[in-house]
Structures are given as structure tokens and as C-alpha cells.
């Protein structure tokens, strides 16, 4: 997001961030989700990330649609602005808010039902606009809140609790986003906070639409054997990818710090973000180029064919220009422009009237 430049204090022992806030200050109301729901782990990762990034709570807007996942905004950052809108339409609400005030940190939380069925059109068009928004999908392959129907991310062959298999091809948000020109595309797992936190950090800092697809199992309706979005299945197929040394970004190094070369130079790859921050990729497959959209697409497809759940920050366009850049709007938040700058006044009106005679 464009206007956050504060460096963070990274000493791991310190409990306060640069704003003097503890992680607790970034918490929200008590979760009303099921015990063990993946979404609550994502919430924890979100809290960690915004704490680390020193986001001022009241300068952040949390937006969502409807679903168990979409309740997440209530569970972190109590002191931020939250908007739990309507099912599947959060992207447009976020687009409007962002248009009005480009200076806030926009965090959008959605579910696979919210994003890939009723909200698919809005998701795709938010990607096209390159809306400056972290768009995090808590992806569990089902509609949790309405009790376990398949969502559009359910894999072919994945079964319901009763054993009925899904036969429709899944919509993979990662492939979709790559195809539609998204400028930041990542996948992670609610069970891997270590991977997820820096991805969220980078996504928030990214100047444009950052899609983060998080496999976030639904313990109540989709955590059984036969489900491809269960903890067990994800862990198993996820691990494989990591073992094959596939890319995950493991360190997000912001502006103020020097890049610590704690891994062999040949293994690291740094991508500089618009605000000077750097995303460092490690454990990336030999010739994987996270700035090569088509390459990323081909790689993910290939790994999917092998049944793997590829995770990590998969693609980033360092030249990303967000919606405001495309619209060429002024730097100041539009909502706050002085009325004199907006209203042409009586003289202009009089002059204008001659055009209509």
C-alpha cells in the first residue's frame, strides 16, 4: 500500500512494534468459529503480519463478504474499520473504499464460496483493476456456514463427508489470477504460519491486488478422509512440494534493513517492491522465476497434474501499477479533498452556460 513507510523493529524478543503496540493490540473479538477451524490460524497469521508491519489499526480497513471465513475481520484488529458486506461482493466495496481513500491499508478476507461462486465476477474484475488490496481466500473447498456443500474449489474426486465425489473441475484461484493478469499471486496453508506471515506482509506491501489463496481446512465439514482440503491431505501433498525445494518466500525484508545474506547467494533471489522493500525467495526450484507469469502458470499446472499443492509466493510483478495509477488520480485521498478543489464555482458555471445556448 502506498503510504506506509515506517520501518519496523525486528528484535524478536521485543513484544512491542515500532508503534509501541503488542500483538494483543491487534487482536479482535473472540472467534465464534468451530474449534480447530483453519480460519482461526489465518487470523493469527494476520495479527502477526500487521503487528510486524506496524500497521496503525485505525488506518486499516478490513473487508469481507459472508461466510465463516468472512467473519474473520471481527476476530482481529478490533481498533480497525471493519466492513462485513454482502456475500461475494466485497471486492466492489473495497474498490469503492479504496477509490475514496487510497491511504488506508486494505485487507479483504473471503472464502472459496464467497470468491469463486457468487463472487467470481467481482474477484476477476478486482484483479483486472489491480485494486490495491490484500485479498485472502480462506479456502476449504466447502461452504462452511451453510453446512458443507461443495464449493467451486473442490477438486475432482474429493468427497463429501458422506462419500459423494465432486465431478466438476475446480476453479483454482492461483491459475485464475495468473491468467487474468494478477500482479501478486501466492498460495499457503493455514497450518504453516511461518510461511503465511511473510506472504501476508509482502501482500499488504504490494502495490496492487495481492491474491493469497490459503488452504484453510473446515474441521466440521471437510476434514475427512477423501477430502483434498483436509489437514492431512494438505500436509501430505504440501510437504512434498517443499521437499522438492519449490519456492516459498521465507523472508520479507523491508526497506530500512540491509539484506542479510544468510543463505547461499545462488539460492536466494530478491525482488524489489515499489516502496523499496524486497521479497526474498528461497527454496525455489532451480530455474523458477517468480516474475515470469507464464512460467509460473506452467509450473503450477505441472505440479497440480502431479497432485501437489504448490505453495509460496508464486508470482510477483515488481512493476505493478495499482488502480489509482491507472486512473491517474491525485495523491491525496479523494474523500478529503477540500470542497474548493472540487466545486468549480459560480464563475465557471456562468462561463459554462454559454456552451448550452
Amino acid at each position, binding site marked *: 500500500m502506498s503510504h506506509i513507510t515506517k520501518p519496523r523493529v525486528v528484535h524478536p524478543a521485543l513484544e512491542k512494534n515500532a508503534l509501541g503496540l503488542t500483538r494483543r493490540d491487534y487482536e479482535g473479538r473472540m472467534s465464534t468459529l468451530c474449534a480447530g477451524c483453519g480460519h482461526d490460524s489465518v487470523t493469527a497469521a494476520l495479527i502477526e503480519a500487521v503487528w510486524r508491519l506496524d500497521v496503525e489499526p485505525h488506518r486499516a480497513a478490513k473487508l469481507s463478504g459472508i461466510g465463516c471465513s468472512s467473519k474473520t475481520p471481527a476476530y482481529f484488529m478490533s481498533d480497525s*474499520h471493519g*466492513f462485513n458486506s454482502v456475500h461475494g461482493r466485497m471486492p466492489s466495496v473495497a474498490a469503492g473504499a479504496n*477509490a475514496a481513500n487510497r491511504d488506508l491499508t486494505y485487507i479483504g478476507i473471503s472464502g472459496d464460496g464467497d470468491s469463486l461462486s457468487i463472487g467470481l465476477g467481482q474477484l476477476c474484475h478486482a484483479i483486472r483493476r489491480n485494486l490495491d488490496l490484500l485479498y485472502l481466500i480462506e479456502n476449504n473447498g466447502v461452504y462452511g456456514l451453510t453446512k458443507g456443500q461443495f464449493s467451486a474449489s473442490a477438486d475432482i474426486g474429493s468427497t463429501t463427508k458422506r462419500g459423494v465425489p465432486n465431478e466438476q473441475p475446480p476453479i483454482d484461484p492461483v491459475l485464475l489470477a495468473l491468467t487474468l493478469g494478477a500482479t501478486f499471486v501466492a498460495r499457503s496453508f493455514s497450518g504453516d504460519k511461518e510461511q503465511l506471515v511473510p506472504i501476508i506482509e509482502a501482500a499488504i506491501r504490494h502495490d496492487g491486488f495481492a491474491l493469497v489463496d490459503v488452504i484453510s481446512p473446515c474441521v466440521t465439514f471437510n476434514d475427512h478422509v477423501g477430502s483434498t482440503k483436509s489437514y492431512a491431505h494438505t500436509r501430505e501433498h504440501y510437504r512434498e512440494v517443499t521437499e522438492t525445494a519449490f519456492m516459498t518466500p521465507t523472508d520479507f525484508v523491508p526497506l530500512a534493513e540491509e539484506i542479510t545474506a544468510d543463505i547461499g547467494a545462488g539460492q536466494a533471489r530478491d525482488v524489489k517492491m515499489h516502496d523499496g522493500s524486497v521479497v526474498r525467495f528461497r527454496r525455489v526450484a532451480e530455474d523458477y522465476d517468480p516474475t515470469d507469469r507464464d512460467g509460473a502458470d506452467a509450473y503450477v499446472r505441472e505440479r497440480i497434474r502431479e497432485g501437489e499443492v504448490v505453495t509460496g509466493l508464486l508470482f510477483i510483478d515488481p512493476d505493478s501499477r495499482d488502480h489509482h495509477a491507472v486512473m491517474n488520480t491525485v495523491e491525496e485521498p479523494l474523500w478529503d479533498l477540500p470542497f474548493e478543489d472540487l466545486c468549480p464555482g459560480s464563475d465557471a458555471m456562468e462561463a459554462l452556460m454559454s456552451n448550452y445556448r
Partner: protein
Amino acid sequence: MTTARVNDFAFKIGTVNGTGSASANGLIMQSIFRMGIPVSGKNVFPSNIQGLPTWYEIRVSASGHVARTPIFDLIVAMNPATYARDIEELAPGGWLLYDSSWPMADTLKRDDINFIGVPLAEMCVSNFEKPRERILMKNIAYTGVLAALLEIDLDVVRTLLEETFGETKKHLLDSNFKSIRLGYDYATEHFDCPLPIRLEAMSENDDAIIIDGNTAAGLGCVYAGATVAAWYPITPSTSLVDAFTAFCARFRKDPETGRARTAIIQAEDELAAAGITIGAGWAGARSFTATSGPGIALMGEFLGLAYYAEVPSVFFDIERVGPSTGMPTRTQQGDILLLAYASHGDTKHIVLFPADPAECFEFSVKAFDLAERFQTPVFVMSDLDIGMNDWVVPKLEWDDEYTPDRGKVLDADDLEKIEKFYRYLDVDGDGIPYRTIPGVHPKGAYFTRGSGHTKWGTYTEDSEEYLEVVDRLLEKIDSAGAHVPSPKIRSRPDAKIGLVTLGGCDGAVREALGTLEADGSRYDFMRIRGFPFSEEVTTFLESHELNIVIEQNRDAQLLSLLTLETPIAKDRLASVRVYGGLPMSAHHVITGVHERLGIGAQAEGARA
């Protein structure tokens, strides 16, 4: 019928769309306007882009009547495909001007009208070289013929052309004027000019402009300080956002950087347009969208959210003929009830009803004030006739004293002072809570949701807590009745009957009053300009034995709304409806009212 009449007649021009006739028609309209004569124009066009019949109707009325008249004294029939229909529609004694380059079938001829054949195509072929020019100039040439027949001031025409083409496009000026002269000369040579219906300069338009409602509304949004516009193209609303865009290009660029002080977002559909509008309103911008019936039908869920979560936002509904896709290039007032009660559950919305472009401008500004004052979606209900046709209205004026009413917003200083902020708490007992703009102050943060919430802003599923909020909402919206534009009322002593109308019916009803009162009858008149209805609306209704509600829809929607939302007894309301898609004429009103009162011929129904 067509006796000698100066500055009091109507004519129309039938052409094929996409052939450039629009500029010729505009030129004629504007010339008459510049001659200082009251004039109005109605564009009757098809729902396609090129090749189908289209008409431009011009009414000249020294006494200032602006309503459409369905009776034409002269028709310029440039489209052989509609000869039959055009000839049929001409008033007895009227004139039919046609292109005599090709003979007209005798079967089409009528004895009681005058045929004026001018070989327009032939003339253009022998006087112009390029094929494209030959076609275009044919349409300009009839302007010249009309100038001769009706005495349009050629100097005015020339000046207008000069203004249009300037110095840089001199060749276009020349060819245009040449073809006009060709028509003019041919006419003066071959016919008795002028006709008994003709023009004579006046000076009625010194303080007037020609403008359409969508342009005026777009300008209103600029003056109101709207900074976010989201839209999805749909006839007849598109030109509103087009106008806003053009005005912003002119008035809303940072003078130094050239960067935009407005975000205009072409959404992927109307749902998204509504979402963007609401998101921007929530974040503190004055934001709006413009659409038509099908768009409103799609926005239902979002409108309920904005109502319940109390998000200021402005929605223009430029209506066309429904139901469904209906007739996208015809006019109607068919969404009244939909707008008043849009969305599921118990909801009620503020709606403004402008009657002409001047009010489109005024009410646009008002809509933003009301939206922010009452923290709710506000509709401006216009229609194709108001929005897209050319209206002569007084010059728009702007009062530099105006400051936007942003309503009950707590700014950083206010928040600093208070202990705790509760978004949905009715602190002042006026039904309106305070709101904050996100990002302004830590104490201002709150959670917005469309689900059940308490007055403290927390989630609830508890009856009492839920009721406190929805009951306040009803009170809040109803209290807006005192703040919407008050009705325009014209009273006569002892009138027992009130004529009640809204929006673009205004001209037709006012014109009809003259005829209706010619026999000594007395009518009062009220044009409603906003919903919820103010006290004055009720008082007017209550003070008449019978109120005849005149509107443009099948189901008497204004009458229904009055029935539900004022205490008036049902038997004191009667209905006249015209909903075939063309703007209402005084004729419709007169026959409708007479019929309701059992006066005169019952032949012509109200649905004409």
C-alpha cells in the same frame, strides 16, 4: 387545423439513425432557440445503432409549453421506410416534406395534406463530389428547406455553424452552409415561402439554455463535490456519467500535475457499481452511480445493505420502459414503488423526482446532502425523456455560499473529545447517529455489517436489540420528508379537484390546466418532488374532494405510494396513466381527467 400560426406549431423529422441527421436536427432546434422562441425537442430513436427509423420532434410554443404534442403540422420524411406512417400522422392541412429525387408512390398520397418534394439527394449529388459528403449533406440540406418554409433565420444558422466548426474546420462550414443554401434556394424558388406556420424572433431565451437532464445531473454531481462515480453502461443513463466524465476532465484536474480529482470506475455490472458506490460512501467520499430499471433490479441486495448499515450513497435511476428489458429507448415512470421500497425486508428510501434538467442539476446536489444527512441511499428518479431530450431551461446558477451538508460526522477533534464512539447510537434523539470517516482517528473505528446489530454497533441476534435499530431507521427515513424538495403547488380559490403529478409529466399537466379551466372549472395543481412525502403533500390531498394522480406507468405507482404513505382516503384519489413510452402530452391529461370526471367523450382511454 393548420391555420396560420406564428411560433406555435410542431414538426418532426424522420430519418435513419446513424446517418448524421442528429446534428442537422440539433442545428434546427438551436437556431429556433437562438431566435429567442420557446422550443423543445424530443428524440424518438430505436434500440440499435444504425439503419433503423428515428424521429426528432420539435415543438415551438410562444406561450412556453414544453410537453410533447402528438400532433404534427409538418413532417420531414427523409426515410422512405416510414413514409406511410409519417403521412398518416400528419395533421390535416399539414405539410409533408420529402426527398423527391425518387418519386413517391401515389398510394401513399393523402388529399388533405400538402406534399413538398425537394430533390435533396439529386441536389447533393450534383453539388458535392465525395460519396460520404453526398450522404451527409442530404441531411443538412433539409435544414435549408425548413429555413425557407418556416423562416428560420439563416444568419443564426450560419453563426451556429461557425461556432461549431471554428476556423480550423472551415471546409466543413462551407460545405454545410452550401447545402443549406441549396435547400433554401430551392424552396424559395419552388414554393410559397413561408408557410402559414412559421417563426418570428422573440426574446424569451436570453437567460435560458438548451440542455438535457443527464448533462445537468452530471454537472450537479461535479458541483456537489462527488469524487467517486461507478457505473455500468445502460441506456438511458450512460450519458449522465459521460457528462460527469467530461466535466471532470475540465474541472477536476489538479492544475499542476494534471492528475484526476475523481475516480470514475466503469464497473463490471450494476451490482459492482452499487458496491463501489457504497464502499466509497462508507470511506467518506460523495459517490454515486447512474443506471436504469434493470440495474436497480440488480442492486436490490446492496441497497438493503446501505439502508441497514446506513451508508450515504446516491443512485440515479434514469428510467426506461419496463418490465424486463422492455423498450430501452422509450420513457416511463415505472420504478416508483421499487425505489421507495427497494430490497428485501423492511426498507424505505428517500427518492427525489426532478421534472426537468434544471431540477436534475439542483436535485443532484440535494441528493448528496440528503444522503449524508440521513446516512442512507438516496435515489434521483429521472427518465429517458428528461435525461436525454433537449430542454430549454433557465441558465443554471451556482451559489458560492453553498457548503456540502456532510451530516453528523465526527472529525478528529470531535473524537478526541468524546469518551467512546458508538456508530449506531441515537445520541440526539433525531434518529440519526453520528458517523466517522475511516482512518481519521483511532477512536472513530467501528464495525459495519448488514447483519443484526445493536445500537452500540455490536453483532446481535437478540430481538430487542435488533428492534431498537430498525425502529430508529424507520423514524429516521420518515423524518427526511421534511427535508426533501417540497412539492410545487399552484392553488386556485375554491378548487375542489387537485391534479397531482411528478417528474416529466409536469409540462403536460400544466399545459392541460389551461384547457381544462377554459370552461370555468378550477383545479389545484401539485407536483411532488420527493419521498417520503412532506406534510404539504398531505395537506394538499386533504384539501381536495378528489385528487387525480397523473403519471407514466401502468400500475398507478405514485397513487399507490400516496395511498400507503399519506393518510388520504382512497376514494379521494383517482388515476390518469400514460405509459406507452412516449412523453406525456397535454392531450392525454385532458382526456384522462375528463374521463375520470365523466366529462365529454370517453373514447380515448387514459392508457393512450
